[in-house]
């Protein structure tokens, strides 16, 4: 398998071990695998293309061809874990983790599955790296989300997977839930392929929707994990969203990307794991490299040093190419109100 699938499989195995689920204990046909990504097996494609471009069509290795395709991420995870339900890849660029985790939770809530192995995976490859450089989105040295002098993002890579179960399934096997998934919100800017809508209306709608669908109001939220890429436009737009949604309340907000780098499709899945850690420990992760307040980013940044605080319910925000906005709510077990039937608009 390619490197991206390998990272996803490794993360899936760690997640199953962490959940205390042994091979053979999964309800195979009731277990789905939903994985987000931007480019999936980009490295395999890069190799195939290089062989073709440099040495001609005859140099393209036949056995290598079927190893390319985003669909292979969930396929390999399913093979490694024994899952036999839906295998689905959701390419949603830098919001893919939230897409996958949210949709996996939907499948469980609607009775389609009992267990989901879900999250996202992404690797760094030259094409993406140069693409971000050419878009002038990269920081020369350090990533400083929400800082006045921020100069852009730094790329990272990885895979973050979670085991999501129905409450009944978790109770039956005596599992200790680490967190509960609340609602999530999805919207599309329909404005520009890479830039957020200046009025941030799509992003605001997605965040409000995630909170409302969790049966909560903004006052219930303790912490916001920002998308916080460190680019001028993203952070300004995101600060506007947080001010619009939370009003005068100075809710703590932080960007793990200052430490993890921007892991593209995997970002919001890795950060969901960080959010679970926050719920378990009450520690808000810091935004490192924060030096100078930016009046355009007038939000309560957890600057440079982790902070302890109430951490019952957190919001995980993400935005992506294509005008995608995806926001999820994660909570300490037992604090969310019981799910409500979907509202009719």
């Amino acid at each position, binding site marked *: 398998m390619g490197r991206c699938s390998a990272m996803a499989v490794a993360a899936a195995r760690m997640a199953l071990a962490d959940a205390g689920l042994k091979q053979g204990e999964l309800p195979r046909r009731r277990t789905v695998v939903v994985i987000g990504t931007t*480019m999936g097996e980009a490295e395999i494609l890069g190799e195939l293309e290089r062989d073709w471009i440099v040495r001609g069509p005859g140099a393209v290795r036949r056995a290598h061809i079927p190893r390319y*395709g985003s*669909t292979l991420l969930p396929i390999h995870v399913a093979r490694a874990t024994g899952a036999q339900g839906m295998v689905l890849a959701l390419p949603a*660029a830098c919001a893919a983790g939230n897409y996958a985790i949210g949709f996996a939770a939907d499948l469980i809530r609607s009775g389609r599955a009992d267990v989901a192995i879900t999250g996202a995976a992404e690797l760094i490859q030259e094409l993406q790296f140069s693409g971000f450089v050419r*878009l002038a989105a990269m920081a020369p040295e350090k990533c400083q989300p929400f800082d006045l002098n921020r100069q852009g993002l730094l790329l990272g890579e990885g895979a973050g997977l979670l085991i999501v179960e129905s409450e009944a399934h978790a109770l039956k096997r005596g599992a200790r839930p680490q967190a509960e998934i609340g609602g999530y919100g999805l*919207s*599309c800017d329909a404005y520009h*392929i890479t830039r957020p809508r200046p009025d941030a209306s799509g992003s605001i709608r997605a965040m409000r929707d995630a909170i409302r669908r969790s049966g909560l109001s903004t006052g219930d939220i303790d912490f916001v994990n920002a998308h916080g890429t460190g680019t001028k436009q993203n952070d300004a737009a995101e600060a506007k969203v947080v001010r619009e949604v939370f009003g005068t309340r100075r809710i703590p907000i932080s960007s793990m990307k200052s430490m993890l780098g921007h892991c593209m499709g995997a970002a919001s899945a890795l950060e969901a794991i960080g959010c679970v850690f926050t719920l378990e420990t009450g520690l808000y992760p810091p935004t490192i490299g924060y030096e100078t307040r930016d009046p355009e980013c007038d939000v309560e940044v957890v600057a440079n040093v982790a902070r302890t605080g109430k951490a019952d319910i957190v919001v995980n925000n993400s935005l992506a*190419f*294509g005008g995608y906005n995806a926001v999820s709510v994660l909570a300490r077990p037992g604090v969310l109100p019981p799910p409500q039937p979907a509202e009719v608009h």
Partner: protein
Amino acid sequence: MRELAVTGVGVASTAGVGLPAFIEAIQSGARPPFRDVRSDTFDGSKYPLAGIAEVRGFDPTKYLGNKGLRSLDRLTKLLIVATRLALHDSGLKKDGAWAASSPDRVGIVVSNAYGSLEAITELDRVATLEDARYINPSRFPLTVSNTAAGYASIWEDLRAVNVSVSDGNCGALDALECASVFLAQSRADALLVGGAEAMSEALVLAFDRLGALANGARLGEGAALIAIEKPEMAGSRAANILAMVAGYGTAFVPPEREGSLVHATPDAVEQAIAYALADAAMEARDIEVVISGACGLQAFDQAELTGILRTLGEGACVVAPKLALGETLGAGGAMGILAAIALMGAHAGGTAGGPTVAADLVLRGALRAAPRTALVTSLGYYGNASALVMRAPSR
């Protein structure tokens, strides 16, 4: 799955743009010419053994005008055209303006298997032969798999959910499952759902190298979308209901050998159909026609047919529209859904009561006129299969 109403279609297939050309293709059963490539994307004559067919006479300016097309790739243009057609066919838009619902409440869920290989190859060529520092930044976003769906939203102002699905040949049927979940959760009033896949030299090279296009299979391309909504929404706006989506099932069955990757399994097809029937609360005998994904790839066609016959019995009628339309991968299941709609005859373009598919495309059994139920099946290359139950609207 709660039943959903199909209220419109939009299609660009190898038969041409629009449903009439699509219906004509499956009624005549004419296979696409072995080589039907006229676009400027690449020189098809370099692959003399590969059967390939492009969307005949595709001229996006006819549907989208001249402005803003230059930065788009073929995949995106195919998808935007299908999106615009489906929005108008469903009556959600009229003459380019919203006639029902609103931008915040309409979204798109679209399957695509391989992304924009056209754009990726273009940038890889520059990076490999010149320097990665010279790649065109305005083309870079096209290399991201969900960009086509993102552009469709920009062009048509769709601000509800925008989701790309990648699940190989099963993706378009899986997109229907995603859409049904989103509609059940009231994330939209209406969704455009289906798939898109574009011809590119990289795709042809890959399938050619695997020897998949030499023995009857044709690599096609296209975009096919249906507009779906809850029946009460369709009813309240007096929309024309073309068909109902009644049930979905999917299954993954890994190969027994650890080292195998590509895997044609009848077992996954069998399970997916059983789940889809249960989901639709139907029995095997209720299915009047099966729209299979058979395209001329022998091992996969055989596995799919075996799975179908095991579940539905030897007397099942199985058709294969891909023999006329080509294999369209991520769009394939959506082409199958359109074939089901055409066969069930509720669309103005259909010919209710008459023979609606060429005998050449019937793999098994006898096709009855104007079937009332249809099962659409897709088999992936790695051991997964999906199935969708559809029925004609109530008279």
